């Protein structure tokens, strides 16, 4: 794996390998000394054109746990407004010897350009581009789903397994969501069934080619007994200007996950959210803090998954010999 640009680029075997590697990484994180020497001497640049403290910290933690040197490059603003172009920034990082560039950009396709325009030779990891893709989020979601819903369940890692047979509802602003796009592709690749739930204004024209069902009615989908409900962040700005829905209240009434809807879920079903949550809008405090909510665990799993991704793009085909000990199937 040279780059990770889109969840759609991964086949089942690659995706399962990443999840299995993440499991091995997670196992090392339960030790007292969490740091592994795997990427010692390698340089990872976090190139963030968009504010995202959570994702940046997650990647930074992942890289540091693998002993990589980490440079955080916050380039808010862009060539659109003023200042340095993406090309010049990329060439600068190349000159400084970046082995991998983790990029978050407001423009869809920016990581693809970075990887293919000849501006840099390093590995490119997409940390979220516009309304296009957020593949590590989808991977950490798949990892979380697998831990809870596959095999023995309850926090063990069913290494080698995919998500065959699971039904996941993704609820909210699908139109603007890179998380939804990545998850639709990855969960399908891993054998799960996905139902997108949103008001029609927040479903993109062209969704018919996606590997997912679409419903405008959350309650109907909950009655199907999904194994997981993934709530997407809804930005309050969406109702101004664009007028995607009439009011926050009406949105919550139709699509918010509250205690009443939570109670309709099957006992084993989990509640997910990529964060940050708008409590009271797409998710109530009852749902966010429920026992079946895995929102906080998603964050922790994010570090393990990003360790796996950085490891796989940088260490290539080598066997993991971290600490001399962790094998791929640890």
């Amino acid at each position, binding site marked *: 794996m040279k780059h990770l640009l889109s969840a*759609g680029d991964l086949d089942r075997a690659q995706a399962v390998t990443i999840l299995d590697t993440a499991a091995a990484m997670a196992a090392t994180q339960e030790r007292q000394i969490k740091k592994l020497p795997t990427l010692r001497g390698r340089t990872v640049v976090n190139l963030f054109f968009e504010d995202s403290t959570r994702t940046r910290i997650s990647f930074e933690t992942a890289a540091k746990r693998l002993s990589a040197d980490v440079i955080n490059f916050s380039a808010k603003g*862009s*060539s*659109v407004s003023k200042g340095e*172009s*993406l*090309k010049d920034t990329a060439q600068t990082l190349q000159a400084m010897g970046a082995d991998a560039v983790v990029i978050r*950009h*407001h*423009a*869809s*396709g*920016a990581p*693809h*350009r970075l990887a*293919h*325009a000849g501006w840099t030779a390093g590995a490119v990891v997409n940390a979220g*581009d*516009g*309304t*296009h*893709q957020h593949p590590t989020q989808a991977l950490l979601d798949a990892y979380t789903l697998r831990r809870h819903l596959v095999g023995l369940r309850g926090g063990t890692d069913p290494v080698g397994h995919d998500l065959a047979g699971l039904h996941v509802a993704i609820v909210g602003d699908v139109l603007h969501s*890179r998380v939804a*796009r990545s998850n639709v592709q990855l969960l399908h690749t891993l054998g799960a069934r996905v139902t997108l739930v949103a008001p029609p204004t927040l479903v*993109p*024209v*062209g*969704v*018919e*080619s*996606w590997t997912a069902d679409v419903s405008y009615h959350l309650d109907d989908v909950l009655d199907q007994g999904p194994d997981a409900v993934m709530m997407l962040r809804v930005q309050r700005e969406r109702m101004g200007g664009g007028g995607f829905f009439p009011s926050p209240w009406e949105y919550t009434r139709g699509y918010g996950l509250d205690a009443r809807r939570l109670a309709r879920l099957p006992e084993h079903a989990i509640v997910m959210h990529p964060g940050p949550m708008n409590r009271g809008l797409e998710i109530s405090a009852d749902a966010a803090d429920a026992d079946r909510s895995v929102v906080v665990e998603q964050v922790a799993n994010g570090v393990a998954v990003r360790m796996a991704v950085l490891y796989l793009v940088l260490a290539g085909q080598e066997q993991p010999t971290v600490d001399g000990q962790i094998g791929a199937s640890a």
Partner: protein
Amino acid sequence: MTAYLIRGASILGEGVADVLVQDGRVAAIGATASDDTSAVVVPGEGLVLLPGLVDLHTHLREPGREDAETIWSGTRAAALGGFTCVHAMANTNPVQDTAGVVEQVWRLGRDAGWADVRPVGAVTVGLAGTQLAELGTMAASAAAVRVFSDDGRCVHDPVVMRRALEYAKAFDGVIAQHAQEPALTATAQMHEGLVSAELGLAGWPAVAEEAIIARDVLLAEHVGSRLHVLHLSTAGSVEIVRWAKGRGIDVTAEATPHHLYLTDELVRGYDPVFKVNPPLRTAADVEAVRAGLADGTIDVVGTDHAPHPREDKDCEWAAAAFGMTGLETALSVVQAAMVETGRMTWADVARVMSFTPAVIGRVADQGRPVQVGEPANLTLVDPAVRRVVRPQDQATASLNTPFAGMELPGRVVATFLHGRPTVLDGALVERAGASS
């Protein structure tokens, strides 16, 4: 003035005859053409002789963006593409919204001498869409403007559009509309459909073009004016124009080479060389535009040649400028899309790329039949050649051709502008004393 004998070419792809070019005119056709033994012979065996091509839609960028193109470089590209007349769009800086600016562009074109440059006048002051520019004064100027357009922007206010359509009747002008409903396309990056949904790029829906065309043909009918629709790109637009023509509305329409040949699938690589406005559409739209051009619903092919400096394309998609160059590939693309598919003859090509554009633009001495006594604006094409498009080899000052690396049929061998060759043997004929 040197005389030229074009020997053995097929005129409009039909009969083969020698053609003598002398003193700016077609002096003789057939057996008598070779009477003048002093004429320079241009071998035309196996080639097709067309009237010089006329483009109703060229962005020459001067004044204001000489880093992208100048009138000199753009008209050299035009000559190499077989054009003898180009209409220079109004979105320059300063905007071509006064007699002073259109006369400047017209004079620069005349001084360069590579093609007749007919400036397009802005419909509204500063292309702002609110106040009519001085259309009458531009029409009466030395530039004799007949085509008016805010191209790049839509004249979206229906009252302003109505007034412009009405007002232009006094001097036989035509309003050339860039049909794009602005509110429906506020953040648009590409055609809205299956590909945009996947790529996460904001969509430019077909309805944003079709709604304006539908409104405008009804306005044109209401006030009895003529309307020209620029760069029509969707199947729905073709249907609306077909319907309007059926009603007798005085509307003409243009398709670009890229909308006849390329689809939104090309956007998947996020290379901004494929970013254009209106955007590349679906294969079904391309098919409908081809059918519309073949059956006469679409009257002309206009290049929408839109050069941009490298930095405006060498970036992420959202930051890139809209537009692609086209003068040096237009004829080849039309050959590939229409002639080689059997949908059009070379006579049809002459109609949509020369005769009809000249009529719409009211250019008296361009787009004329290849007949004795007519102005010698001629293009000699070798349809048998196949060539790979190389941006660096083009005369345009910009590199943003979407056809880079593609193999296209046909090559312009010679172009004559009022009897003088601007291109011979496929290369520009430099003139002593001419400068950039």
